[in-house]
């Protein structure tokens, strides 16, 4: 369950009253208490009261001194997390007489800032200082990392039992801990797929764009290497979701789709609800989808070799019970989780897969029951807990009297205010017209204005005029669609300078589902932006140098290309001289000669101009481009080279192409590179056998360009590294060509791939989205910047020796 996308959950405003009180980033410190304890603490806080009405949680501190177990989860919202905590708790309560089980959600995914986590840790320390914890049960990798970082100060004495974490997530020095280690068997999952699809020819592996998603990609490449030769391996790593879905729709049915972790896509969108994403992906895929996450089976995913959530919970509970009976963690080595192969019957049916082909010990799950049925027991338990809690509150309120309740409320408010004000993050609330209704201290300090100057004023006025329409549009969209939106913009400080901020804005709805306010959490990213600009500059330098290098390789051919018109010009001019020496020169002939000279001069000038554009270092300038015209221009530059190397170029353009939005020079560089590589690849062929096919076609909203050679093809040990920086098979090559191509293509929101042709030779293909209306373009550039930079990190690291 390590890296299950479901572990990161950001709630949207869909009707959670708890959110309305805490806002998305205030730590939610709801604690659940075992229903066994009848004693209700006086430390009832407004937090908890809100939590009871909202997320069915009740914050209580324990007084009775029995055995105390603390369950730590990140958001507690992923179904498997809920299942594990509920089952562990149930087992503990059933087996120990006087155990008390507390549960805390750390909310790391939603409040990743160091200060916020520190505040949570401090709170936990305070809360449990009087009630030592006998065992901390930690669910999921982020919770474990949270605790590991603070091992010395937070529950230093308490032994730890972890679960739902992969081997790589377990810190090396974690004294006093044991747990259940998840293993995800990619190979067995692919084997399962192969037993269902014995004729499969291709394996497509899906991973997302965030750090942990990328780790998955690395692991997959390592483990699945064994299938090379048998299956054509394709990695859809970090694609924007829309592109991914489009690709999946195009797959042929003899493909195996393996969905791994995708917490974020290449466009920067995060997916809180893993199973929902799996459902969308499996529905789009034209071939059966498999996964290693149990939560995905039943969402349209055919199946996989998956862990049993129940077995994890049982192992964790068993380890905890042993700790409680006095065993030492040092004597209890971590245990491996148990996996089984499981398939979803309805998904089998969708693809007409034969059940008879399944390995003998496979679990065939019928259609999953609705969540209500599935979690009926838990749900009833929760209802009972809410009812009990509500009764308890009533009793408490009656008992403690008004004054005590007021004091408790005041304390809570103080705590809350302290938490909000001590943040270095900027926190604000505003009406849909951007009028500020709340700002924290950090916000006032940052903008250099007094609170009174800010409240009741529209924050849009702080934003430079040019950016206002875009920001207003974002606000309108989050209000209209009720979703959390992450975006960045600039704002003018009191001193008049402009700084960048990143905002996470979250709408707050009333009982009718109408947005009343928006809560924004922001931070300054001016330095980050500057670093980004610098990276961009270096990227451009590298791109430029590679371009210069290619043109250098072409220099001989280009000299030829200039020599031709010059030869004609010289002969024409010298002929004209001779004609003029005659008594009655032929004026008609002279006129023709001058006309030819002008035409040849223009032609030579064109070549020089093109060369100069490509040699000129420069920024990126996006415009609407016709790919076939671009290709024609590049062909002029390589024509002589093709001729020289006896390469026959076949151009196959399918009709007029819709324009793409791109940088002329950079896209020409890609085309140039691909054509040159294709020539290079055919060097060993007989001169009569060097055919290069350039294709361009429109397909489903994309312009697809491919260059096919008839060389020996890509060696299998090379294919996976083809687009890596500094990887080259040429003796004199720098190995940046294709990696720069990839970066350029991803800067253009497209992607590039290479494959061997079925008969012989290789095809390198890139796809660019067709240009969209203005407004969406700006949006996309924003989104894709992240992808582009990711692609360049390696190259930059290498050039700067980082």
């Amino acid at each position, binding site marked *: 369950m390590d890296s299950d996308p479901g572990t990161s959950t950001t709630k949207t405003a869909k009707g959670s009253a708890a959110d309305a009180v805490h806002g998305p980033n205030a730590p939610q410190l709801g604690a659940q208490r075992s229903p066994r304890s009848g004693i209700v603490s006086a430390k009832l806080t407004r937090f908890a009261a809100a939590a009871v009405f909202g997320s069915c949680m009740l914050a209580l501190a324990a007084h009775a001194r029995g055995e105390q177990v603390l369950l730590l989860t990140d958001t507690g919202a992923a179904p498997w997390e809920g299942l594990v905590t509920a089952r562990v708790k149930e087992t503990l309560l059933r087996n120990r007489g006087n155990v008390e089980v507390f549960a805390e959600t750390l909310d790391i995914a939603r409040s990743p800032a160091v200060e916020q986590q520190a505040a949570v840790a401090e709170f936990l320390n305070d809360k449990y200082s009087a009630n030592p914890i006998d065992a901390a049960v930690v669910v999921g990798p982020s919770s474990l990392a949270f605790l590991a970082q603070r091992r010395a100060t937070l529950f230093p004495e308490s032994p730890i039992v972890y679960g739902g974490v992969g081997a790589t997530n377990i810190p090396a020095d974690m004294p006093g801990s044991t747990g259940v280690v998840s293993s995800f068997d990619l190979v067995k999952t692919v084997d399962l797929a192969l037993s269902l699809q014995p004729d499969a020819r291709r394996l497509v592996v899906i991973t997302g764009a965030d750090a942990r998603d990328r780790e998955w990609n690395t692991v997959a490449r390592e483990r699945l290497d064994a299938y090379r030769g048998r299956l054509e391996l394709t990695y859809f790593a970090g694609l924007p979701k829309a592109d991914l879905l489009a690709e999946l729709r195009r797959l042929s049915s003899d493909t195996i789709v393996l969905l791994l972790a995708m917490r974020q896509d290449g466009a920067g969108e995060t997916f809180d609800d893993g199973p929902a994403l799996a459902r969308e992906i499996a529905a789009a895929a034209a071939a059966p989808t498999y996964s290693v996450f149990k939560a995905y089976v039943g969402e349209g995913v055919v199946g996989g070799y998956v862990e049993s959530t129940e077995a994890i919970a049982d192992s964790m509970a068993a380890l905890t019970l042993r700790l409680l009976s006095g065993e030492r963690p040092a004597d209890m080595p971590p245990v491996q989780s148990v996996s089984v192969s499981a398939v979803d019957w309805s998904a089998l049916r969708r693809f007409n897969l034969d059940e008879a082909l399944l390995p003998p010990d496979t679990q065939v799950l019928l259609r999953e029951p609705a969540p209500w049925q599935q979690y009926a027991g838990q749900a009833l338990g929760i209802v009972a807990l809410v009812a009990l809690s509500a009764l308890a509150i009533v009793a408490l309120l009656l008992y403690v009297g008004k004054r005590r309740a007021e004091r408790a409320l005041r304390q809570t408010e103080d705590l809350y205010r302290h938490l909000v004000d001590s943040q270095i993050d900027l926190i604000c609330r505003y009406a849909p017209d951007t009028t500020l209704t709340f700002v924290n201290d950090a916000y006032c300090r940052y903008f250099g204005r007094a609170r009174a100057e800010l409240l009741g004023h529209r924050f849009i006025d702080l934003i430079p005029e040019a950016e206002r329409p875009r920001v207003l549009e974002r606000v309108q969209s989050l209000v209209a669609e009720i979703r959390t939106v992450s975006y960045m913009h600039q704002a003018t400080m009191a001193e008049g300078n402009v700084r960048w901020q990143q905002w996470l804005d979250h709408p707050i709805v009333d009982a009718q589902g109408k947005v009343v306010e928006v809560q924004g959490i922001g931070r300054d990213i001016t330095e980050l932006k500057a670093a980004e600009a610098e990276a961009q500059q270096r990227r451009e330098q590298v791109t430029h140098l590679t371009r210069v290098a290619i043109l250098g390789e072409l220099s*001989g051919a280009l*000299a*030829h290309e200039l*020599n*031709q*018109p*010059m*030869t*004609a*010009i*010289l*002969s*024409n001019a*010298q*002929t004209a001289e*001779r*004609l003029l020496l005659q008594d009655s020169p032929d004026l008609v*002939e002279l006129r023709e*000669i001058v006309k*030819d000279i002008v*035409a*040849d001069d223009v032609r030579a000038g064109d070549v020089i101009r093109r060369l100069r554009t490509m040699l000129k270092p420069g920024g990126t300038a996006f415009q609407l481009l016709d790919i076939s015209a671009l290709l024609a221009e590049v062909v002029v530059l390589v024509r*002589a080279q093709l*001729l*020289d190397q*006896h390469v*026959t170029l076949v151009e196959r353009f399918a009709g007029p192409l819709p324009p793409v939005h791109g940088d002329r020079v950079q896209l020409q560089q890609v085309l140039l590179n691909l054509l040159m590589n294709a020539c290079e690849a055919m060097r060993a062929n007989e001169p009569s056998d060097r055919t290069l096919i350039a294709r361009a076609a429109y397909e489903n909203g994309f312009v697809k360009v491919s260059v096919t050679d008839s060389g020996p093809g890509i060696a299998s040990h090379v294919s996976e590294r083809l687009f890596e920086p500094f990887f080259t098979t040429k003796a004199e090559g720098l190995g940046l060509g294709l990696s720069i191509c990839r970066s350029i293509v991803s800067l253009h929101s497209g992607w590039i791939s290479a494959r061997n042709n079925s008969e012989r030779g290789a095809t390198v293909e890139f796809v660019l989205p067709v240009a969209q209306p203005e407004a969406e373009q700006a949006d996309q550039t924003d989104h894709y910047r992240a992808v582009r930079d990711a692609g360049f990190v390696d190259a930059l690291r290498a050039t700067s020796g980082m």
Partner: protein
Amino acid sequence: MENRQPLIAIVDDETSICRALLRLLRVSHYRAESFSSPIAFLESLAERVPDCVVLDLQMPMMTGVELQQHLLQLDDPPPVIIITAHDEPKTRERCLALGAVRYLRKPIEGDVLIDSIQEAVTARRDAAERSVAKNHL
């Protein structure tokens, strides 16, 4: 026979070069014809063999060197003057070994080309006259 102007063939896939050289040769009182395809030129040989061939090296379908080899199969191959924009010592040796009388780099000085043609045509005519004289003896 004495008064007949020599016929020069220009073979270059670049039509603007063909046109320019054609003019240069005509203004210099040669009869000239141009071919932008080596195949068309080879076909024309059935009707008439020129007195000199001005031949470009880089052409699609057939290179100048290959064309030169074809010409060598004729009974009385005409002299060949190579013109090229892409000077490589190896190719140069190859062409000269196959009997090219001159190897000129583009762009070509008009005077140099005319002189080369004149030399080649004269040498060929002299050789022909010598062989006629020999036969008469």
